[in-house]
């Protein structure tokens, strides 16, 4: 049914489509913990202004989002919700794990209620280190993600889960 899954998309069209995905990453207004504020600074602070890169923080609902920044501590109570919200985003979707807590538990690595890393629940495309990463570090992560999108094979992405956890 889909033109892309069959692998019949011409190369030039694919480049074009990759480019449009690259420059239109609607990101979900959803913060978890401290990093949410630095994410907020990247999104809403005029100094960083993530909209420049085509990352548009308008949607509040996962249905319209292309990307989610997991910004902060993932607790065991929150984990099912994160999984569900990730599932509810339409494909193709991208995940940036921001900060030590989301990467692997961070300061709460020994806590009884914290999930040690969001990549146990959902696949992650880019890990941004920091506690919290400064907004420009998140921007670096976004630029890195955009490069990946530019070079990615749509067919592969469409058909399977393209990013193997921890690969």
């Amino acid at each position, binding site marked *: *049914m*889909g*033109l*892309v899954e069959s692998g019949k998309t011409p190369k030039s069209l694919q480049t074009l489509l990759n480019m449009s995905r690259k420059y239109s990453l609607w990101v979900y207004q959803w913060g978890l913990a401290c990093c949410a504020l630095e994410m907020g600074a990247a999104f809403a602070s005029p100094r960083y202004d993530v909209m420049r890169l085509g990352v548009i923080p308008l949607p509040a609902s996962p249905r319209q989002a292309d990307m989610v920044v997991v910004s902060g501590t993932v607790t065991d109570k929150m984990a099912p919700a994160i999984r569900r919200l990730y599932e*509810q985003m339409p*494909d193709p979707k991208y995940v940036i794990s921001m900060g030590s807590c989301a990467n692997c538990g961070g300061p709460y690595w020994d806590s009884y209620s914290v999930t040690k890393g969001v990549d146990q629940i959902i696949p992650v495309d880019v890990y941004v280190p920091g506690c919290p990463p400064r907004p420009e570090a998140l921007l670096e992560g976004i630029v890195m993600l955009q490069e990946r999108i530019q070079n990615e094979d749509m067919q592969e992405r469409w058909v399977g889960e393209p990013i193997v956890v921890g690969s």
Partner: protein
Amino acid sequence: MSDFLRSYLVVAIFGGVGVALVGAFLGIASLLRPSKPSEQKLMTYESGVNPTGDMWAQANIRYYVFALLFVLFDVEAIFIFPWASRLEALGVFGLVEMAIFVFILLLGLVYAWRKGMLKWV
């Protein structure tokens, strides 16, 4: 076909254009987009938790009084249109007539207001 009908044919055509545009968009998209439905993806969104209760719960529509008022007033307003476009011809007589009509309308509004209908119950 008369000019009158023709002009309404254009209306129909434009309605069709709107539909066709949406159809074309959806058609192109269906060629390009992936489709990977899953149980949770098709679940209704409710802030990340499992939706509780029935989605089509009975809702108490608090503005039904407004709705009634609105219907009344809207019908009255339609009567003003022919008068408005012919005021020049009708002159002072039409003006007085309509002033009375509008006054009655206002009276109705004031009545509703005094009765407390314009409160969001």
